[in-house]
C-alpha cells in the first residue's frame, strides 16, 4: 500500500476530549508520525493577577478558581508556601482536615478519568456507573466544605470549617460503600475485554522514556518510577495515615488505569484513618505579618506534582507567584507517546493522560 501523508486536527473541541487543547497530527496512512500542540486557549493570567491585583491573603481563593477538579491542591500548595514565609505553625487537626479534602479530591478526580477512559472504549454503561458513584464523593465534599467544587476551604493558618460528628460518620459510611464499588471497578478493568485487552500495550511509555521526559504522577508511576510528592515532602502528615505508593511496570493505558484504581483504594484507607485518628484542637491559627523571602512548595495533585514558587518582600502584594501544574509538565511526554501510534488510539491515549487544560493555561 502506498504511503499517504495527511494532517488531522484533534481539538480544540472534540467529542472525546472535554478540554480546550488542540493537537495537530501528521499521519502516514493510519500511523501518527508528527505532532504539534496548542495549549493556550483558556489562558487567564492568574500568575499576573496574583502579583499585581490581589493581596497575599486573598490568593488562596483566587488560585482555587484555576481548576474545578483540584481546587484544594492549588489553594493548599499556595497556603503552605505563605505559611512557611510567615514562619507560622498550623495545628495538626487543620493538617488532617486538609489531607482529608485532598484525598477526597483525588478519588473523584480519578473517577472522572476512569469514566472517560471507559467511554473511549465504547463502554458507556461503565462511564455512567462511575459517574453516578462519583456523586457520593462530591456530596461528601459539600458536607465538609460547603461546596461541591472550587471550595474555599483552606485559608492561611488552617481551614475554614471543622468537621462535625455526623459528617465524620457519613464520610466513613460512604467510603466503606465506595471501597466495594472500586473493587468492582478493578475486576471490570482487569477482566472486561473492552477495558483490559483493548488497552494493554497501547500508549506505552517505558521507564527510560518516563525518566527522560520527566513524567510525573500516575503517568510516571504506571511506568515504574517510584515517585510521589506525598512521600517526598514532610509538609503534610502522610506518614501517619497509611500512605502507600502504587506503581506498575508496563506504562500503557491499562497500567495507568490500574495505578489510579489502587490509588483510590489507598486514598479511601487514608481518609478512614484520618477520621479515626483526628487530633483534637483548633482548626485555625492567626498568623501575623507579611510574607518575606522566597519558597517552593510541592503537592501531589490527582494528575501529579503541583509546584508553587512564592516570593514576597513584606508587602501585601507578592513579587511573584509561579504555578507549575501537572498537565503542563506532562505535555512533552504525551506528545512523545503519540508518535508511532495508530490515529484511532489517540482519543483513548489522551483520556488516559487525564489532561487538565484549565490548570495548564491558568
Amino acid at each position: 500500500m502506498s504511503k499517504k501523508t495527511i494532517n488531522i486536527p484533534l481539538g480544540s473541541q472534540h467529542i472525546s476530549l472535554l478540554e480546550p487543547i488542540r493537537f495537530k497530527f501528521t499521519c502516514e496512512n493510519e500511523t501518527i508520525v508528527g505532532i504539534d500542540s496548542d495549549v493556550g486557549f483558556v489562558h487567564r493570567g492568574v500568575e499576573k493577577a496574583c502579583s499585581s491585583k490581589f493581596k497575599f491573603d486573598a490568593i488562596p481563593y483566587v488560585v482555587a478558581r484555576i481548576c474545578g477538579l483540584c481546587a484544594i491542591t492549588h489553594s493548599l500548595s499556595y497556603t503552605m508556601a505563605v505559611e512557611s514565609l510567615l514562619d507560622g505553625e498550623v495545628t495538626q487537626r487543620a493538617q488532617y482536615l486538609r489531607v482529608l479534602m485532598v484525598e477526597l479530591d483525588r478519588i473523584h478526580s480519578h473517577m472522572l478519568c476512569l469514566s472517560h477512559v471507559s467511554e473511549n472504549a465504547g463502554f458507556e454503561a461503565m462511564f455512567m456507573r462511575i459517574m453516578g458513584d462519583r456523586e457520593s464523593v462530591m456530596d461528601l465534599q459539600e458536607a465538609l466544605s460547603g461546596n461541591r467544587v472550587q471550595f474555599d476551604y483552606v485559608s492561611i493558618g488552617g481551614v475554614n470549617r471543622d468537621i462535625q460528628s455526623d459528617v465524620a460518620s457519613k464520610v466513613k459510611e460512604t467510603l466503606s460503600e465506595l471501597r466495594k464499588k472500586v473493587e468492582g471497578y478493578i475486576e471490570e478493568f482487569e477482566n472486561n475485554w473492552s477495558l483490559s485487552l483493548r488497552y494493554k500495550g497501547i500508549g506505552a511509555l517505558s521507564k527510560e522514556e518516563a525518566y527522560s521526559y520527566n513524567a510525573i504522577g500516575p503517568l510516571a508511576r504506571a511506568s515504574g518510577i517510584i515517585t510521589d510528592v506525598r512521600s517526598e515532602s514532610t509538609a503534610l502528615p502522610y506518614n501517619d495515615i497509611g500512605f502507600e505508593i502504587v506503581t506498575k511496570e508496563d506504562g500503557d493505558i491499562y497500567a495507568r488505569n490500574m495505578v489510579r484504581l489502587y490509588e483510590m483504594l489507598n486514598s479511601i484507607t487514608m481518609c478512614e484513618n484520618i477520621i479515626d485518628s483526628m487530633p483534637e484542637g483548633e482548626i485555625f491559627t492567626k498568623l501575623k505579618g507579611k510574607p518575606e523571602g522566597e519558597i517552593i512548595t510541592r503537592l501531589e495533585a490527582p494528575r501529579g506534582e503541583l509546584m508553587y514558587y512564592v516570593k514576597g518582600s513584606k508587602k501585601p502584594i507578592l513579587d511573584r507567584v509561579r504555578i507549575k501544574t501537572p498537565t503542563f509538565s506532562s505535555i512533552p511526554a504525551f506528545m512523545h507517546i503519540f508518535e508511532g501510534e495508530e490515529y484511532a488510539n489517540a482519543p483513548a491515549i489522551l483520556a488516559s493522560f487525564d489532561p487538565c487544560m484549565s490548570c495548564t493555561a491558568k
Partner: protein
Amino acid sequence: MKKIEVTLKNVVNVIREFYKPTKHHFLTLNGLAIDEQTTEIQWIFSEYAKTDEIIVFYVDVKEDDVIPSIVEIIPSAIISQREIVDMFGLKVEDSQSGLYLDEDSLAKPLSFGCAI
C-alpha cells in the same frame, strides 16, 4: 531550597554535569522580574525519593541576552522555555513564542512593570 548561581555561558554545562535522569527530576523553568532591565531565570530540580530536596540554578539576564536551551539534556524543558518566551518576552534558544499567548494578547505580561 538550595540556590546555585550560574552564568549564561556555563549553565548548560553545569546542568549537564549535575543532571542524572534517574536521580533528578526537572520541575520547571521560572522567571522573576527584578527591574526594567533584569530578569532572574531559575532552573528548578528535585531529587527522586529524597524528602524536601529542591535545587535551583539561577542567573540574571538582560533583555537582549539569549538564554541557552537545555532541551538536548532534558527534552521536556521545551515547554517551560516557550512559556518564558511568551511571559517575559525574553529570547530562549530554539524556543518559539505562541505557546500561551496569541498575537493580539498583551505582550510579555510578567515582565517588570507590565500593567494590566
